């Protein structure tokens, strides 16, 4: 199997697992506004119900009040991560291409003659 086909299968597998989790989760979890509640907040709810006397002794300095604003900030985090990842991968790619071109041309050769040499080899 070609490398590209394997990569495609990996993407398909990821989508399949998330999709399956979504379908199975819909049957088991609560419906409505509480569906797919975060496991983090479920754990904090568990503490509050098992230890009603406990009170959080420190509050976040800043808290996005609206869940819309909150998901926007999460999207911002994911976006920053994605942009950085893409930028970095692009730069690595560019570096590799430049490095791959280096050995072909001797220092005295110009880039143009190097290119015509290689095309002559192929022809």
């Amino acid at each position, binding site marked *: 199997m070609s490398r590209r086909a394997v990569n495609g299968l990996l*993407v398909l*597998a990821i989508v399949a697992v998330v999709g399956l989790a979504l379908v199975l989760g*819909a049957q088991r979890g609560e419906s409505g506004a509480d569906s797919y509640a975060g*496991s983090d907040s479920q754990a904090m709810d568990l503490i509050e119900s098992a230890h009603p006397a406990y009170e959080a*002794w420190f509050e976040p300095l800043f808290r996005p009040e609206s869940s819309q604003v909150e998901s926007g900030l999460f999207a911002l985090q994911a976006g920053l991560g994605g942009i950085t990842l893409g930028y970095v991968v692009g730069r690595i790619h560019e570096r590799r291409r430049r490095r791959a071109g280096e050995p072909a041309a001797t220092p005295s050769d110009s880039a143009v003659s190097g290119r015509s040499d290689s095309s002559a080899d192929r022809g």
Partner: protein
Amino acid sequence: MHIAEGFLPPLHAAGWTLAAAPFVIHGGRAVARERRERPETTLLLGAAGAFTFLLSAIKLPSITGSSSHPTGVGLGAVLFRPPVMAFLSTVVLLFQALLLAHGGLTTLGANVFSMGVAGPWTAYLVWCTVRRVNHTAAVFAAVALADLATYAITATQLALAFPDPATGFTGALAKFLAVFAVTQVPLAVVEGLLAVLVLRLLGDIARPELERLDVLPAAATRATEAPR
């Protein structure tokens, strides 16, 4: 795996902060050393950090009907060894604590310990053990188990701080694991598959760097690369 702000008693919060601090300081030095000694891998270091930043922001649905997020620390631990990830995780967790009210400053130590110390070290140990058998399986297992280990440690931290009135620590641990562990399984599988994919793509464009980091075996496998 984020313990919310103020949700650990002061003594526990201080204890986990003290436990995590040396790993973070050591990690900061490891990042500086990496950049000094192998400047050609700095871009990959950025990729590892960005991967964690991206993955820890994405909430995915799970079979339990709840949702959770991957951690993204396993890949970086495989690439750069665990100390580096202690530092990068702290940056991510600090960002989330300050801007998203997700996690917190008082619980930063505990959260860094689970995501930045326990997760990466699990990944590294699994990676070192399984890579002798199969390279791809090692990446998958290392990253998936790092994800699971992070949440198992969070459950342990919460059970230590909030033992069940009737059944004590073990009872509480079972309850917290019930919230975290099963939910995390499909996410761990997704993160493992994604890490395998990302490492394959990086292998196409950064093979010399990955060989130098001892992630890919040096030169020998070049012949198997697909011609383009």
